[in-house]
């Protein structure tokens, strides 16, 4: 399997140590917790970005990693969101899942790239029921489908809205401000 499965450009970021993972991910050696989270998964990349633990995986492994994270002690999924890297990276979208473990007092960020032509990701509702609203919001704002979500409908925009607002090709929708004395916009 190609190393660059997630399709992201390697980031030259200040202060980041990137350790490429292979069959059994070689993570930071002291970190048994993260090792147990990514063990069931074939390929993962672990990083420490500005003090956060970030794990990059393939999108098909998302549900499996979430399950193993939950059994490893990450009892709360705090956030599911997405980023549109249009023009910045090869793979357009990235779904970001933030987990929190009460017993270990640790956070973990799982990041997975999602291509533009097939924006589908497995849903985490069966593992963390609280991701229900978050996934609906990502669908509403980015158009990313979550397979297995019980009720994937728009949540913030009206049902008949056309377009996905947080995508980069969706304009902000500014209305030109008209001042009384200025030339009227017709």
């Amino acid at each position, binding site marked *: 399997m190609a190393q660059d499965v997630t399709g992201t450009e390697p980031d030259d970021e200040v202060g980041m140590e990137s350790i490429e993972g292979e069959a059994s991910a070689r993570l930071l050696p002291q970190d048994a917790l993260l090792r147990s989270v990514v063990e069931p998964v074939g390929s993962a990349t672990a990083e420490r970005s500005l003090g956060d633990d970030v794990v990059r995986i393939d999108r098909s492994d998302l549900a499996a990693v979430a399950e193993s994270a939950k059994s490893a002690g990450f009892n709360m999924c705090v956030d599911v969101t997405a980023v549109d890297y249009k023009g910045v990276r090869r793979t357009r979208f990235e779904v970001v899942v933030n987990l929190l473990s009460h017993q270990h007092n640790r956070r973990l960020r799982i990041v997975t790239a999602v291509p533009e032509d097939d924006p589908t990701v497995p849903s985490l509702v069966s593992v963390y029921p609280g991701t229900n609203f978050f996934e609906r919001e990502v669908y509403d704002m980015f158009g990313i489908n979550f397979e297995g979500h019980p009720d994937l409908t728009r949540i913030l*925009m009206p049902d008949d*809205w056309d377009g996905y607002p947080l995508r980069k090709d969706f304009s902000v*929708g500014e209305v030109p*401000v008209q001042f009384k004395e200025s030339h009227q916009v017709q």
Partner: protein
Amino acid sequence: MARLSTPPNLLMTTIGTAVRWAQTQSMWPATFGLACCAIEMMATGAAHNDLARFGMEVFRASPRQADLMIVAGRVSQKMAPVLRQVYDQMADPKWVISMGACASTGGMFNNYALVQGVDQIVPVDIYVPGCPPGPQSLMHGILTLQDKVMTGELAR
């Protein structure tokens, strides 16, 4: 009442004045608090800046019993039909105060999600600027509205 086409005479002007006085002194607002301005509206109605001394004793939940709609907060695209429906349910005479920058013009959020000014949906009588306008600003707006109704400038 003020639109009657009879020529002005002592009786009708006196009754007209009396009617307008009654309208201003017991104008009941409908609860249409949406966002941050709603909190300032509640603060205006609370004890420190008491709105009840101007006759706005109660905020009626049912629009059918209210005659003033203070649109307090940002109106999103999803909320616009609801706003119109509530306005339509109010009985004449009714007035609208657009409270805050977001209700008046869209405020700092000039984007796809907000209606850029609630006057695109309902006719507005008084605009109260501020983000959010303090209770004193809102009260000034309300008192201005009462003056305008009293003098007959806002005929309904």
